Structures are given as C-alpha cells and as structure tokens.
C-alpha cells in the first residue's frame, strides 16, 4: 500500500504495507488513523496522491467496482457493529448472504470460521446474550468469513478489558499467520508493546514514526 495525500486529515503520508504484514497504526485521537483506514476502504478518496490496495489504484477505481474491493478487506470496529436481531451464526452468515453466496456454501463456511474464532457452541446466541469479547469475536468472524486479503481493525480492543483484549489480539495474530494482512489502529499501549509488530505513528496527519518491532510510546 502506498499513499500520499496532502489534505488536512492526512498530509504527505507515504507508507508501504507488504502482503502478510501486521501493522499497528498509533497516534492521538484525531491524528488521522481512521482517515487512513477509510482511504483503504475507499470510503474516502484522497484529494491528491494515490492509494494502492492489492495491486489496484483506488483513486482510479470506478465506483461500481468498490464492492469487489471491499470483499477483499475485512473490517472490525470498536463498537462491534453486529445485528441485534440475528444470532451469532446469522451475523456471520449475513456477510455471505448479501454478496450472493449459495446457502450450501454458507452452511459449510460459517461453522468453520466460528470455530476459528473460538465461538463453537454459541452459534444460536444473540449478541446481547454474549460478552463484549465474544461479540468482537463474532465481528472478526464476519470480517474474516470472505477470506479477505486485508483485515482492518479500528480500535478493536477499545471497549474491552485488558484480559479480553489479549484474547482478541491472539486471534488477530492467528488470522495474520494464516496470511491475511492486518492493519490495526489502536490506543492500547500494553498491546502494542507486547506484540512487537511494525508500528506506524501518525500525528497531525503526518507519519512521525515507522519502525518494525516497535513499541507505542517511543520517540514521539
């Protein structure tokens, strides 16, 4: 991924993320982390510069191809964004249903993914019946069910206690090891320090630090 975008939210940001990498995006609130992620999802277009994802220049991507792009990117958020009126399995299946996956396929894939995220036995529970950590696992399962090339996580542990957060991080790490590129925006110092992954720090829309095996607080 490369980008260079002189604009108020992000200014002259130039970053390459290789396939299969695990990257932490850190920085204060309003520093531009979320804008970075929105650019990758083509929710925003840069006013100048380019965004390349999976070999495609998103600034030149026609809007009807955006859904195809998003099928290659999984998304996880701080607030889980589950459908309250659907079960755990239903929430995961939803992602497949709306892109037209055949029922047989769905019935085969969903249990596998739920097992991967450690939710076997909770398939028929509703989101309000399970813990926050479990809800985030459902969200990760939903994001991963399409086998995306990239997983974007915007403060996935923001609403969780440290112990649950570690569980989520282990899950993301496992997904990364399967071959999915993970880009995670976070404020969580402990997690960043513990994982020892590549850290990109953004401040005021500029990249102020980019180091492999970094920690949260150093430098800036």
């Amino acid at each position, binding site marked *: 991924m490369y980008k260079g975008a002189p604009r108020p939210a992000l200014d002259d940001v130039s970053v390459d993320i290789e396939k299969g990498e695990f990257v932490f995006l850190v920085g204060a609130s309003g520093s531009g982390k979320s804008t970075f992620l929105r650019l990758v999802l083509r929710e925003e277009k840069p006013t100048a510069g380019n965004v390349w994802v999976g070999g495609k220049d998103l600034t030149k991507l026609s*809007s009807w191809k955006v859904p195809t792009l998003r099928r290659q990117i999984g998304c996880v958020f701080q607030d889980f964004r589950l459908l309250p009126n659907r079960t755990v399995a239903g929430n995961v299946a939803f992602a497949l249903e709306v892109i037209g996956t055949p029922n047989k396929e769905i019935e085969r894939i969903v249990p596998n993914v739920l097992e991967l995220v450690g939710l076997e036995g909770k398939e028929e529970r509703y989101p309000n019946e399970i813990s926050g950590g479990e809800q985030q696992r459902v969200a990760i399962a939903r994001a991963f069910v399409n086998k995306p090339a990239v997983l974007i996580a915007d403060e996935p542990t923001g609403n969780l206690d440290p112990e649950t957060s570690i569980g989520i991080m282990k899950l993301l790490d496992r997904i990364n090891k399967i071959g999915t590129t993970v880009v995670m925006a976070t404020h969580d110092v402990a997690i960043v320090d513990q994982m020892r992954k590549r850290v990109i720090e953004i401040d005021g829309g500029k990249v102020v630090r980019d180091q492999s095996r970094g920690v949260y607080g150093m430098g800036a």
Partner: protein
Amino acid sequence: MKFRYLLREVMTGLRRNITLTLAVMITVAVSLSLFGSSLLVRAQVQEMKDFWYDKVEVSIFLCGNISDSPTCAGGAISEEEKTQINADLEALKPLVDTIYFETQTEALSRFKEQFKNSPLAETATIDQMPESFRVKLSDPTQYAVIAAAFAGRPGVEDVVDQRQALDRLFRALSGLQTLALVIAGVMLLVTALLISNTMRVAAFSRRRETSIMRLVGASNFSIQLPFILEAAVAALFGTTFATGALVVGKIYLIDQNLATTFTFTTFIGWDSVFGVIPWMLLAGLGLAIVAAGLTLQRYLKV
C-alpha cells in the same frame, strides 16, 4: 441475492413503515384513479367522435316565407334555385356523400318529435318550418367547403354544421380530461415526494444493516433492491386499488347509469378500460422505482 431473503426484507420493511406504506398506497391509488379516468374520458370523446361524426350532417336551410335573413330578401326560394343547389351539391361529390332534401312536412314532424314534451310542438305550424338540404360529407372536417359554396347565396338562409355543436361538447369534455390530468399530475408529484420520504425513513431505520452490507462488499444493486421493491410493492397495491376503482366506475357509473340514461350515444367498452390499465401500471411502478432509486442514490451511497 436470494429470493427468500429479499421477500423477508421487503415484508419487514413494509410492516416497519406501515403508516408511510399506507400513505404511499393511498396517494398512488388516488392519483392513478384520476390518471386512468382522464385517459378514459379521452377514450370516451374519441368514441363519441367516431359515433357522431358518421351521423352529423351539414344543413343548408332554405328561405321560406317568414325568413328574415338578408339573403332571403327575395322571399321564398324558387324551384330553379333549389335545382341549382342540388346540382352544385352533386358536383361536389365525392366530398359530398349523400344529399337529402327535407320538406316542410318532414321538418315539422321532426320538430314535433324533438320537442314532443314541450308546448312548442303544439303551436308549431308548417309555415314556420324551413326546407333544407341535408348533406352528409365523406370527410366531416371539410365543412368549410360547403359553407363557402352555399352560405350567402340568394335563397339560402343559413348553412349549419352540426359538427360544430358537437365540437363544443367535445371541447368541454376535453377540458374536463385536461383538468383530471393536471390534478393527477400534481397528485403523482405528491406521491413521488412521499415515496422519496418513505425511502429516506426506510434507509435510516435500516442504516445498521446497510452499513454492514457496504462494508462486506454487497453491490449497490443488492443493497438498494429491497428498498426499491418495497416502494414498488406499495405502488402495486395502490395501482390495484385504482384499477378496481375504474372497473367499479365502469360498471356502476357508465354501464348502469349513464348508458341507460343517455341512450342516444355509445359509451366506452371494456376494451378501453383494459387498454388503460397497462398505462396505469407503468405510471405507478415507474414512478415508484424512479423516485425510490433517485432517493437511494442520495441516502445509500457506496
């Protein structure tokens, strides 16, 4: 996109916004009833034109003893003048289709027939009745040719085109039709705005689903389809009501009322009614789909 999923989405959507759904159905029903009625009035005018234009005549009234028109200054028309008019009419064939000479006696009996319930019929005398040539034209619109040839000629009191009297009626009916069409147009505009607002509410109440659909890469079409179908189903119900209204109107108003009262003319048949229904469907569904689609462009962006 699976059919069962679609059906469920559309049904929950319709139920969730039940008040707005009903409002859409009612406005569609009312506006399309007006729209359909105005089309039927047009069909009725056409029907009457076809019926009457075959029967209308141009009447050339001749001077009698009591005529006071300037062309009748020479008193009653002479036999030579009559023969000349007849010859001139013959010369105008094939525009002139048939020529019939109505005598005073025939004129009197026709007058008495037309006014049989009026005291006028009792007092009318044969002297008051004008003689006339009744001319049927092969092309009724060519009245001016006859008028130019015979109006103002000595011995001719007046040239009257029955068609002009009918045209006044048809103009009134056309005016009625235009009025219905304008009201239908305004109502359809209201319907479009209402559908647009309904879509806005529906998009808002389902924003959770649609935002997730966007994120997992559902196509625009599959995100918008349930909403558009929702509008289309509501419009279809409305159109069905409007169609029913026209059928009921045809049975009770035309067949059982007008047709039995005004026996002198024909009325539109079922073929006209069924001919109008596809247009109503097209207008109703087209409007719903276009209004919904345009609104969703705005509220369900990729």
